[in-house]
Each structure stands twice: as C-alpha cells, then as structure tokens.
C-alpha cells in the first residue's frame, strides 16, 4: 500500500477526531489485518457514523413492520421503499432530515436537504411528483436575540426549500411547522419526496456484473460538505458552526438535468445499477453498491470530475458535493449512456469497474489508497444497544390547577399561536401547483395529488405532536401515526404506507435512548393497527443545544390512496343549512394541550389517550360515508381542540356555524379546547342527516349532531348555560395574520 507522504500519521488523536472509538478502531484493524491508510480511516469514519450506519438505532428499527402484500421493495433494502398501487404502477417515497446543516446555514441546508431526498427517489427509477416538509424552530415571538435568530432560521429554511423545490419543478403540497423553545439552536428540517414508477422500472443500487464500467455523472466534486455525515452525527457546538466546509451549496438546476438524464437513461436497457451520492459521497455509493451486488468496485480518483485543483484523494472521497450519481453501466452500452449525458450537458466520466473480489478499492493513479472489504464497511459496522432510562408515565393533569380562561379570548389566542396559525406564509412561497396534479392544496387536512400518467389519486400528510412525545414518547408516537391516518381519512383516503423521521437527542443519554425506543415501538404499534408498512425513513440523533435535547420528534409521513375523484373531501364547509356532526367522544383531557401551553404556559400532564380500535372504527365509518357521497366536509380535531376545528372549517368560505354542545357541566374551556383523540367534524346535507346517523350508529361509533352551517359569518357555540360568539372575519384575520406579522417585525 503506497501512502502519500503528505498524509498525517494515524494517532489516537486523529482516530478520535474521526469520531471512531478505540473499540471501533480495533475492529478496523481486525478487518484490514493492518493499520488503515489516512483515506481508509476517513472512509471508516463516515461509513460507521450514525448517519450512515445507524449503529445506535438499527436494532430498534428492526421492530418496524415492513412487509405487506403491496410492498415491492422493503425498507432498508434500497434508497427508498416501493409500494404497489395497482395497474402496474408503484410509488417510492421517503423522508430525510437535514437538521444540522440547516442550523449552520438555513437556506442552503434546507435546499440541499430537499435535493438529497429527491435523488433518493429518482435513484429508484421513480419520477418524483411531490414534496412535503416537516419543520421545527424555537419561538419566533418577541425581540430577544433568540427569537430573531429563530425568525432568521425559519425564513431561511422556507426560502431554501422553496428555492430547490420550485426550481426543480416539484410541488410542495403539505407539511407542518411547530415552534417550541426546545428547538432553539437546533431546528428540524425534514423533507419528504414521493415518486411514481412502473413495476418494471424499479432500479437497484447494486454493482452488478463483473467487468461493467462504473460511471460518475453530475456536478464536479469540490471541497464542500467534507465529511458531513460525521458532522450530522455529533452534537452542535459553537465550534461546529465554524466548521465552514460542512456547508454544501445546492444547484437545483443541475439536479433537474440529472433527474431527467437518469430517468431517460433508466428507460433504456443500459443500467446495471445506480446510486446517488448522498451522505459520505463517493465513498458510500461505491461500497454500498458493491456490498449490495456482492461484488467489488475499483475506481480511480484521478478520473473523477473535479471543481477545484489540488484536491487530495481524501477530500475527493469524502466530499459531499451535491447533485452527483454513480451509474453501473452494462458493458458495451457506454455510447448510449454518454449520448444521454451529453444531451443534458452533464459532466461525466468512466471512473472504474465492477470487480469480483468484494473489495472497495480506490486508486489515485497508480497508487492504491483504499482497499477494504465493501461488505465490512457497509453492512458489518458496529451496532450498539444503548441503555434506556426507566420511564414512569406522567400523572394526568389536575384540572383544579388550571384556571379557567375566557373562551372568547382564548380562541383567538390559540388561532394566533404560531404552531396553530395558518401556514400560508410558508406554502405560498412553495410552488404547490406545478405538475398540475394538486387537487387539494395545502391548508386542508391532507393534500391530494392526482398522478396524471398513472391515473391514480394519492393523499399525503405529515404529523407529529412533539409535546405529547415529550410527555410520553410511546403514546405520542402512536398519536402521530393515528393523526396522519385521520388526516388522510378526512380527505377520503386509505393509508398505504408510512415513512418516518426519528429526530432525537444524544442516544448516549439513557432518557434520550428511551425516547427513541418507545417511539419506534409506538410507531410500530400504530402501523400494525392501521395495517400499513413502514417503507423507510431516517434517523437524526444528537439534536441538542447547550440547553439540552430537543423534544423527541418522530415525524410521521403517511401516503394514502383515493379510489374515485368523487371521494376527495376537504375541511371547509360547503353550504349554509348543512348539518354539523361530531364523530367521536369528547373527554376532558387538557394534558399536553396547546390550550395549556399557549394560554397557561405549561407543558405538562399526560397526553390524551388513544384507543386504536375506536380510532379505526371512526376512520372506517367516515370513509364509508364519504364513499356513499354523504360527506360535504370533514376535518379532524387536533391542536386547539374542537373550537379551532370549527373555526378552521369556516375559514376561506363565506359561511359560519351555529353549534350547541348541549347541557353539560363540563368546564367550557375544557370542552372547547381539549385534545381528545379520534374526533372528526363533518358536515352533511340536511336531507342526508337521517341516513348518516343511521350509518354511524351501525358502525358503532360515538357521534352527535352539534349544529349547522349558516350564511352568517359568525361562529357561535352554546355549551351548558353559556353562549360564545366570534366573528369569522376577525378570527380569520388573527389566524392568517399571525405568522406574517411576526415575520415582518
């Protein structure tokens, strides 16, 4: 092994700097039977980082249900899972985090996050059709430096997502944004992409065929994002913010060309394997394709298109320059491949060959700088079972400790809380209509997208209430799954698959590891209950700031199917005179509610109870009514409870509602704002009420007619002896104005 003399000696300090523990380094020595070269040390460092190896989470992730009759490619097998949707069509979808890069450089961090997830999808041979985003920031209210920083991060992240998604021409059709101080200094940016493909188009990230040439295509390699995977696997410190090279700049234009070129290429019969260069760049893509193919790959660094002069092999191997792919071409088909890359003006080069010895071998001209068994790198990394702290479920909130707020004031206060307020300021910056398929735009429960080429209707939502997860991670995670399914049901869809993004703090801390484990178990339970597989996802650990770990945030994204255009349902009221029915029983839980947070400044108690059987019965009942054409609008109760739901159903219409919750001695604030799970507000034609009630009774779900849609723009709610009334226009102004006015301050 020829080593460049300029390379530093392998010392314990250098090993530690690469994030490898002494035990892990011992393992490296055993695998190699010798001391690694500097380049090899770098390669092990990134491949065995949490980001690439899932060494702290993989044993947990095995608990997810990942199989099912419609699963064509399972979670973990390839870059994204693939689910059958009938008639020979399938979808590939996945969510991915870009939290730490976004903390350092919000615009580029978020933009490259979007770029990365889109590549994961078209690597599968799928044409990307839409995006979603799930975001978390610290509070954006007030004049504190922290609030100003949070506003800057929020504005930058949204602009970055818009920049990439709009330019590449993918609609961002849904998402979520929450603001909570646990995210100070460590915002969360999770991006989701879904693509469509024919079954026979599924592409594999395997280096098949000994002797096949290995092509590099896309942007030239530069020094950007050096070892970003390792960076994502550490806590953020002041120092890491000075880690300048960790910033990558995205080029959505190049990615658009790359996307079109790859799809054109995959439609030919020239490709034996294809893999994007994401985290850990060239390193990860070569050893993963070799490992999957049961082969070896040999490349020459000097052949790699490079942006800057004088880059070392170490830098080229570990660079995370964006918009690059590795393509294993069937021997003899090189000319066709070159022609396509040239048509799309993309830099490319033949950089190596598939070998039969299972080694990932990297040459720098004549010198071999890396010679490692690919499988050992990609699949035999270290695995840890961390210690989980014992957990005592929180006691329910004692209502006696909560003073009653005046509902007249509390409702507008809730509607203006940035986590509940309209996110129009966000999605108006996203092109959410390009590709002309968005049938339900952002702003309703789940977005609905018609995939023209496949003649299929898809729905998608993303949800996670991290307050619930903080108070009780297992319950909170189950609720996240149920809420997604509920949002889909409200739009008329049946769930077909889930992808999750597990955002947690440092797993070495037992309380954080408990959260991770409980979340995986909660999500698994939820997915089993709804009969949907987890098709893939992403783990982001070490989300900490000096003040501590973030609230555990296991973001769930769920995709559903709608069979008939006539079943597409939205949350807004459609006509005066329609009758309003509340499906599901209202309890009196205020624990973990936004009412408790926004009005009383408390984040405590036990989150609401979730009973899967009841929840599923309600979704089925709702879907059956929708299919019979009996539902004019459907909207679930989430943050802010029933009152917020009713108000939202009036927004954007010219209608109001008159509601009577009957004789009750329940506290009005509890009744209006509690967040009991499994409730859906529907409106139906007056003449259909009897049929609807009969159907609901047959389904054995709790329901109650609570009021009527009016043509007066007022919301009035009677409960017990009290009657509250609000002007819809003024509530709407509060709801729509909250985020813009904070962002202008």
């Amino acid at each position, binding site marked *: 092994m020829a080593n460049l003399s300029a390379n530093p000696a392998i010392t314990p300090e250098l090993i530690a700097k690469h994030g490898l523990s002494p035990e892990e380094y011992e393992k490296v020595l055993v695998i190699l039977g010798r001391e690694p070269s500097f380049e090899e040390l770098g390669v092990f460092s990134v491949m065995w980082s949490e980001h690439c190896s899932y060494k702290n989470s993989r044993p947990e992730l095995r608990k997810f249900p990942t199989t099912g009759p419609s699963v064509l490619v399972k979670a973990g097998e390839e870059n994204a899972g693939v689910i059958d949707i009938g008639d020979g069509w399938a979808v590939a979808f996945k969510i991915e985090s870009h939290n730490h890069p976004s903390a350092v*450089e919000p615009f580029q961090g978020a933009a490259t996050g979007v770029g990365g997830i889109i590549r994961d999808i078209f690597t599968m041979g799928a044409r990307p059709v839409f995006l979603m985003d799930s975001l978390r920031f610290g509070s954006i209210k007030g004049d504190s430096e922290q609030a100003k920083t949070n506003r800057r991060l929020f504005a930058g992240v949204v602009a970055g997502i818009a920049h990439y998604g709009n330019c590449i021409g993918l609609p961002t059709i849904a998402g979520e944004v929450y603001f909570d101080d646990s995210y100070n200094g460590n915002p969360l940016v999770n991006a989701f992409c879904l693509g469509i493909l024919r079954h026979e188009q599924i592409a594999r990230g395997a280096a098949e065929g000994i002797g096949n040439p290995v092509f590099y295509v896309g942007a030239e390699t*530069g020094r*950007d994002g050096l070892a970003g995977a390792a960076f994502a696997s550490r806590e953020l410190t002041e120092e890491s913010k000075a880690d*300048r090279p960790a910033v990558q700049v995205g080029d959505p234009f*190049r990615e658009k060309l790359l996307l079109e070129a790859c799809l054109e290429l995959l439609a030919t019969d020239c490709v034996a394997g294809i893999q994007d260069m994401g985290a850990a760049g060239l390193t990860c893509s070569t050893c993963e394709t070799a490992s999957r193919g049961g082969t070896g790959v040999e490349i020459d660094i000097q052949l790699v298109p490079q942006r*800057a002069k004088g880059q070392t092999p170490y830098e080229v191997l570990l660079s995370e*320059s964006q918009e690059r792919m590795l393509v294993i071409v069937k021997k003899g088909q090189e000319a066709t491949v070159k022609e396509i890359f040239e048509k799309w003006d993309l830099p490319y080069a033949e950089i190596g060959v598939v070998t039969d010895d299972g080694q990932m071998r990297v040459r720098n001209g004549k010198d071999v700088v890396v010679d490692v068994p690919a499988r050992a790198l990609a699949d035999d990394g270290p695995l840890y079972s961390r210690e989980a702290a014992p957990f005592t479920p929180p006691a329910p909130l004692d209502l006696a400790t909560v003073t009653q707020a005046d509902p007249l004031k509390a409702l507008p206060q809730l509607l203006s809380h940035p986590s509940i307020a309209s996110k129009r300021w966000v999605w108006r910056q996203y092109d959410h209509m390009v590709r002309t398929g968005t049938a339900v735009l952002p702003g309703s429960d789940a977005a609905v997208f018609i995939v023209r080429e496949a003649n299929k209707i898809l729905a998608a939502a993303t949800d996670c209430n991290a307050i619930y997860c903080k108070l009780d991670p297992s319950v909170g995670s189950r609720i996240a799954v149920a809420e997604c399914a509920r949002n889909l049901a409200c739009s008329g869809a049946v769930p077909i698959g889930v992808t999750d993004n597990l955002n947690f703090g440092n797993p070495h801390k037992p309380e954080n590891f408990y959260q991770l484990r409980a979340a995986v178990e909660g999500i698994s339970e939820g997915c089993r209950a709804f009969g949907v597989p987890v098709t893939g996802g992403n783990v982001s650990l070490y989300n900490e700031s000096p003040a501590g770990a973030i609230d555990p945030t296991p973001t769930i994204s769920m995709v559903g199917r709608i069979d008939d255009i006539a079943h597409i349902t939205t949350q807004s009221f459609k006509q005066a005179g329609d009758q309003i029915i509340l499906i599901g029983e209202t309890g009196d839980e205020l624990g973990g509610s936004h009412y408790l947070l926004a009005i009383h400044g408390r984040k405590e108690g036990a989150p609401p109870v979730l009973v899967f059987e009841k929840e599923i019965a309600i979704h089925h009942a709702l879907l059956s009514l929708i299919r019979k054409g009996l539902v004019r609008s459907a909207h679930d109760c989430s943050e802010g409870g029933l009152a917020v739901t009713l108000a939202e159903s009036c927004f954007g219409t010219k209608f109001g509602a008159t509601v009577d919750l009957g004789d009750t001695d329940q506290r009005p604030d509890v009744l209006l704002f509690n967040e009991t799970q499994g409730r859906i507000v529907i409106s139906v034609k007056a003449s259909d009420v009897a049929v609807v009630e009969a159907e609901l009774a047959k389904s054995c779900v709790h329901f109650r007619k609570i009021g009527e849609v009016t043509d007066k723009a007022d919301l009035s709610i009677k409960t017990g002896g009290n009657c509250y009334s609000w002007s819809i226009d003024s509530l709407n102004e509060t709801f729509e104005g909250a985020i813009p006015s904070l962002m202008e301050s």
Partner: protein
Amino acid sequence: MKAVVTVMPKPAILDPAGVATARAMEHLGLKGVHSVRIGKSIEIEIDGADPSSLTEQLHEICHDLLSNPVVEDYKLEILS
C-alpha cells in the same frame, strides 16, 4: 458619504449561477473562460462627513446583514 460593499461567494463554495453563466459565455463565442463568480455589489449613501467613525459600524453591518459569513466574503470601500 458613499460606501460600496462587494459580497462574493467564498472561493471553495460552489457558485451555480457562475457556472451556468460561464457556459453561456462560451456558447456566445468567448473562449477560454476559466471561472465566473457572481456576487453582490451594494451601494450605500449615508449622512455623515466623517468616514472613520462609521467604518466600524459598517463593517459590523457587512458581517451581520449584507453578507452571510458562512458562504460569503465581503469587501468594504468607503468612497468619500
């Protein structure tokens, strides 16, 4: 008083606009274009006759507002 601030992407950072523009220049027949980098030029007109007292404040503003130190460098010139 007049100041001009030039903000350029850092040398190691990818400048996609520059790359696209360089290619366009070549298509237009300009040969041998090595690199094009696109940044901002910001002209500021401000009250005050004494540049020295303002310079420090302007540097702060260049750093905090006009440039993004993570990906950009700036140059401040006081013209008068």
